[in-house]
């Protein structure tokens, strides 16, 4: 499954964090989520995302990188800033 950014009203990245304005809501993304979001500028496979994030932040302690990435992606899709292809 590939995902990519949905069109946002505005996006501002600073100090490793990102603010994304979608509709009336502003979402605050931490460092890992910011990188995930940035990697989704073009359509990208969730597996490839997981590899990129693991290379940068290391493997999560409690589950696989793929599972953690899929959960993060699902949350961002629910929040309306990513969409699945």
């Amino acid at each position, binding site marked *: 499954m590939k995902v990519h950014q949905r069109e946002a009203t505005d996006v501002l990245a600073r100090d490793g964090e990102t*603010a994304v304005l979608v509709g009336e809501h502003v979402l605050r993304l931490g460092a890992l989520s910011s990188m995930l979001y940035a990697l989704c500028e073009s359509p990208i496979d969730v597996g490839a995302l997981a590899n990129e994030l693991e290379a940068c932040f290391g493997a999560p302690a409690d589950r696989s990188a793929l599972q953690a990435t899929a959960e993060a992606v699902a949350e961002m899709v629910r929040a309306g800033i990513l969409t699945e292809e």
Partner: protein
Amino acid sequence: MTPVVRLAALGSEVEVHCTGESADFLSVRMREAWSRCVARVDADSTHAVEVLEARLDDPSGLDQRLTHTTQEITRALIAAQAGRLLMLHAGAVSHPQTGASVVYVAPGGTGKTTLSRRLGRTLGYLTDETVGIDDAGAIMPYPKPLSVRRPNGLGPKDEVSPDSLGLLSAPPRPHAARVVLLDRQPGSIRPEVDELAFMDALFALTEQTSSLPRLGGPLHRLGNLIDSCGPVLRFRYAEARDVAHQLAQLIGGAA
């Protein structure tokens, strides 16, 4: 003929058409309360102006009418400037000579008016309600009447002109120089001031904006304000007298 009170504020204009059996009385009191904003009614003007009706039949309902009309005027002006000005729920005062202004951001009912009354004795009163900032950092004054609680604490608040309260007028070209967040906590013992990191400031300010998504590049507009006026400070305090001097000092003034 319907008495009309035309007001210029927040970089826009609104006309209040006074109606009802006490329309003349209402228009006189409107002009007093809105003394800093009254504009000439120009029959030839092609300028787009929001029109409101304010009806008063029983003179004893004046105070409630004025309070309600103030809220309507604020909403109309904000609607007129949506997509143009960065608008914050905030009060602001300005250094009389330099125009440097401190913008104090806070939700309604948390001390903006009290601070404005105190700071406005020595600094130019810009507003106690809504600060509108253009993309160059200039503030569009909104020197509305201040809602003042009666000495006995009963009844509606009075809408009192800044002139009646002796507040200084805004200088010609006020601009945002510092932005602070007010965190009033009645009963706390001593005031505290801390600097907010950029993103903390951005999100705190976002919650106190009007029509933010209507602006072009809204987050960048807010970010530019923080960068040009930063760092954003948070004042935790109990009474206006505890922080008035520090706020004034931020723009080189005294309180």
